[in-house]
């Protein structure tokens, strides 16, 4: 097979959204890049010793330190006089919103010249679908199960885009696997800037969400069309919606595509619709 940056033979689930994103991150930014990965599905499916599906230099150390490892690499390159090689992080929502957030915040504060891509599959998938702070409200996971008292996740998603943007880094954006060209545009734009860049990408997960492998892209579109996932770009503090659904579809349409929402009652769906409506009020 011809030289590739992302080879077939990874061991992710059929239809994995993250795999599509992963592929584009390295294909769009490589080959002159170094990829830093956090423990996650993306690590487990890509680099089981002695194999790797990656055609770019890759390193993984722990779950929580991708941002710090990348900081060290980017400084080493600087010390070596290398001003061209891009340092790119690929990490899940768990490694970004939760366990790695201290390190992420530190990296952003230092404004390290790193492009951080978080694929958000809204739970700890590698370990079997446990709740993360990116899990949407009401979603059933193994640590936010549906019980007699608590009907799934209790909190709304952590507003990561706003939190990262509050660090005043040059580039922050959200994207979705449903809009691959948009993702690639954002990757290229981010890579052209100095300092810390952050892109979070919506990434459906077949077994975790209980969806058919073939609907990954559709789900990645529907979440945007219902307004549950906003596509934004914040460049030097200026925020723009990069995509605005003509007419927002009812959120229930989205919830129906996945088993994790199966238990949701009309009231819960109503609450989520109200939440989304409120969130969109500010968009004018």
């Amino acid at each position, binding site marked *: 097979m011809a030289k590739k940056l992302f080879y077939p033979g990874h*061991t992710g*689930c*059929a239809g994995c959204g993250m795999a599509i994103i992963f592929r584009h991150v390295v294909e769009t930014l490589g080959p002159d890049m170094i990829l830093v990965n956090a423990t996650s599905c993306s690590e487990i*499916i890509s680099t089981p010793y002695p194999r790797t599906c990656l055609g770019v230099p890759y390193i993984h150390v722990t779950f929580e330190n991708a941002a710090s490892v990348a900081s060290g690499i980017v400084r080493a390159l600087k010390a070596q006089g290398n001003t061209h090689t891009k340092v790119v992080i690929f990490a899940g929502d768990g490694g970004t919103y939760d366990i790695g957030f201290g390190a992420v915040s530190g990296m952003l504060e230092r404004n390290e010249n790193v492009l951080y891509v978080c694929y958000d599959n809204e739970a700890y998938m590698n370990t079997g679908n446990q709740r993360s702070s990116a899990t949407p409200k009401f979603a059933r996971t193994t640590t936010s199960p549906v019980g007699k008292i608590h009907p799934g996740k209790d909190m709304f998603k952590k507003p990561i885009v706003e939190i990262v943007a509050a660090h005043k880094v040059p580039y922050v954006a959200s994207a979705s696997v449903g809009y691959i060209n948009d993702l690639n545009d954002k990757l290229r734009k981010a890579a052209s800037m100095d300092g810390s860049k952050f892109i979070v990408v919506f990434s459906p997960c077949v077994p975790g969400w209980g969806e058919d492998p073939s609907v990954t892209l559709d789900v990645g579109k529907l979440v945007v069309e219902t307004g549950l996932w906003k596509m934004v770009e914040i460049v030097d503090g200026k925020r723009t919606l990069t995509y605005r659904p003509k007419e927002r579809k009812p959120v229930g349409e989205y919830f129906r595509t996945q088993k994790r929402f199966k238990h949701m009652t009309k009231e819960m769906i109503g609450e989520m619709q109200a939440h989304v409506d409120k969130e969109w009020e500010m968009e004018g």
Partner: protein
Amino acid sequence: MIEVRFHGRGGQGAVTAAELLAVGAAESGNYVQSFPFFGVERRGAPVQAFCRISDKEIRIHQNVYTPDYIVVLDSTLLQAVDVSAGLKKGGVAVVNTNKQVKIKGAEATYCVDATGIARKHLGKPIVNTAMLGAFAAVTGLVKIDALEKAIRHRFEGELGEKNVAAIRECYEVLKK
């Protein structure tokens, strides 16, 4: 001690099948132990699960290397995996297929169209429970009633009944 190995794909419920077999076999006073192959396999990847059944306490904790029985939930695996690896002399295979296949190294291969049966009862090709019926019929190691009880306990209500119907049909097909 009897050792059973289930072959399936990630997501097909091989682990559940092994567990239900254990629950069913425990019902009649056996010592049992079931466990997955301790892997990181993803949806679709070939996976294995194991069950030990014994009339004496099971003290060991190690992989199953030489199963007495193998149960293949998905015949497409026959191309991808050496399902008969380590199979004991005299070992028996139970395969979900609508063809007639012969597992090399197995003393006998029992074939059943569990997919068809599952489709019929469950509306979906989920065969892990159904195949237990086949296993019970072929081996007599577990009572079909005990399996049904285990299944009803695991899947509440209608779903349980559908599964029970599937397992029973599989059982009967092979009992004949």
